[in-house]
């Protein structure tokens, strides 16, 4: 049962075929067996999962049906859960315990989910490989020598390795979609403003969004429906009617127009990767979709735009980590030195780089040339999408240009930033966007076949239509199941991977 989908688990627990407590135990055993090798979790919250399971079992016995009854849940470690450490995989918050639980997590716990633990990530969600974690190393379950992607690397690895049924991630420029593609799972970023960020430690506030990471699109829809909606604790959540997505799943694509982006030519990709995407587009057509070419002439400026806006917002958000009210403090001779020493010791290189670039882009004399220009470029990028969606219902493209790469393969920052080439434009436009497994790279020289993800994106607030399209594609192709998860060696927890 522990390898079943959330939909199947909730049904079985509500039918009293299995108890939530049995699932909490099975998930715990699974983590003990596998996480020594995978490193998905920074902390396990076994006791909390047992308490939650007991509550679920009591409710079910009393006749209450819960939509996520007994579903094992992993939570990215930038989301607050009362009584747990919330570290953002940073030394500056290594020992900080959350005083409250964020809204998105709370809504899933109220629906019967079991909180298994907090997952590894790039520090403060800044990275595309999970290598920027200051507190742990997560590997790709499909090839332990490769990265899981990032920043939600621990969350995708947990679901891929069967160490969680559902995980929460956060996506600023691709941090749910790129790792989901790398690890053969579904990763969904809803429209900006759909899911409350109360309790999510902020990185770039005009971009950050929480979303589900699951084995199937159906599970993503189930979890999204439970999390989404206005929250008085987050003024950026939109007050707009929610269209249920879970009941909008469809089996074919007749009457659907899918946009293929002229500027994202597949010829730029390595041949075996290109072949996978060519087949994916053909499969959409076979399901009845009409493929139409759309133009996004400014999308190629997405990465440049993002690497001014996101660092600018990060430099402002991370100013709160000054060693006064929470987290690390390194005492200096006076308050200025205390600030500087605390932040120097607490932040890793990538966080420092982004704070520096953001501070520079916002500083006097450069503000208009960099920050404001990027905000204007963002307007053009969003307008391109609006034009494209006049002629199509969703846009299909690769989630990433390559499958997961080896550790230490990307040593210069710009080459790592370009990993999000296909995900950043949608983030800048605020669009709902997801990655669904779409096939496997051809293995060469004895290497393992690696999963690839198809990115599907829709207009603002079109979650129901988007998930419906993704479900039809997934159900007709079932790429996620065509390669079995390799055997995962048992390594004692805490041992070097």
């Amino acid at each position, binding site marked *: 049962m522990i390898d079943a989908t959330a939909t199947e688990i909730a049904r079985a627990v509500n039918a009293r075929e299995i108890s939530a407590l049995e699932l909490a135990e099975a998930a715990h055993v699974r983590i003990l067996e596998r996480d020594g090798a995978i490193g998905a979790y920074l902390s396990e919250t076994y006791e909390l999962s047992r308490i939650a399971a007991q509550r679920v079992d009591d409710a079910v016995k009393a006749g209450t049906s819960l939509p996520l009854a007994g579903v094992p849940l992993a939570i990215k470690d930038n989301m607050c859960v009362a009584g747990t450490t919330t570290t953002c995989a940073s030394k500056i918050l290594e020992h900080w315990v959350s*005083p409250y639980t964020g809204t998105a997590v709370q809504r899933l716990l109220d629906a019967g989910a079991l909180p298994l633990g907090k997952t590894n990530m790039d520090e403060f969600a800044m990275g595309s490989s999970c290598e920027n974690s200051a507190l742990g190393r997560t590997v790709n379950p499909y090839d332990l020598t490769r990265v899981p992607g990032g920043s939600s690397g621990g969350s995708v690895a947990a679901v891929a390795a069967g160490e969680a049924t559902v995980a929460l991630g956060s996506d600023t420029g691709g941090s749910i979609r790129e790792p989901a593609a790398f690890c053969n799972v579904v990763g969904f970023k809803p429209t900006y403003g759909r899911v409350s960020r109360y309790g999510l430690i902020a990185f770039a506030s005009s971009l950050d969004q929480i979303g589900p990471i699951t084995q199937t699109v159906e599970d993503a829809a189930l979890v999204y429906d439970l999390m989404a909606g206005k929250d008085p604790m987050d*003024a950026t959540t939109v007050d707009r009617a929610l269209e249920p997505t879970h009941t909008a799943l469809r089996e074919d694509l007749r009457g659907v127009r899918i946009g293929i982006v002229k500027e994202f030519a597949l010829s730029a990709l390595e041949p075996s990767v290109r072949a996978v995407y060519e087949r994916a587009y053909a499969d959409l057509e076979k399901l009845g979709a009409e493929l139409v070419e759309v133009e996004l002439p400014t999308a190629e400026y997405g990465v440049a735009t993002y690497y001014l806006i996101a660092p600018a917002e990060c430099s402002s958000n991370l100013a709160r980590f000054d060693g*006064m009210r929470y987290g690390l403090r390194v005492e*200096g001779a006076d308050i200025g030195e205390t600030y500087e020493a605390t*932040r120097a010791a607490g932040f890793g290189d990538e966080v420092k780089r982004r*704070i520096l670039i953001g501070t*520079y882009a916002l500083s006097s004399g450069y503000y208009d040339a960099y920050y404001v220009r*990027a905000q204007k470029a963002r307007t053009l990028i969003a307008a391109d999408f609006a034009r494209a969606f006049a002629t199509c219902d969703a846009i299909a493209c690769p989630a990433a240009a390559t499958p997961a790469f080896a550790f230490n393969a990307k040593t210069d920052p710009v080459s790592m930033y370009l990993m999000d080439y296909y995900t950043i434009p949608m983030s800048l436009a*605020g669009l709902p966007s997801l990655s669904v497994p779409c096939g496997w790279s051809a293995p060469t020289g004895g290497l393992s076949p690696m999963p690839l993800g198809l990115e599907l994106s829709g207009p603002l607030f079109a979650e129901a239509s988007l998930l419906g399209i993704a479900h039809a594609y997934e159900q007709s192709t079932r790429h996620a199941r065509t390669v079995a998860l390799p055997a995962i060696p048992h390594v004692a927890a805490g041992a070097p991977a």
Partner: protein
Amino acid sequence: MSSGDIDVDYVAKLARLKLAPGEAEKFGTQLGALLQYVDQLANLPVADVAATAQVIPQSNVYRDDVARPSLDRETVLAGAPRREGPYFRVPRILGEPS
């Protein structure tokens, strides 16, 4: 706009980051490469384009000014690096050195 040479020490001071020996050179090179990359934005015709701060149709959001319970003081102070009674203990901000 031009990538130019970024004065990393000055920017680090603005950002309240103490740099270790060698870090100014390392970050300077990396930030220079990024600035060179973002210089491509100069190709975009943005003169008459409005800036976008956020993307959804949302303006000011107000709530009633009603007092309500906040987080428990002890729970919050438990996360403080230093405390004194019911307060955060912080270094002296004004006046002579502490």
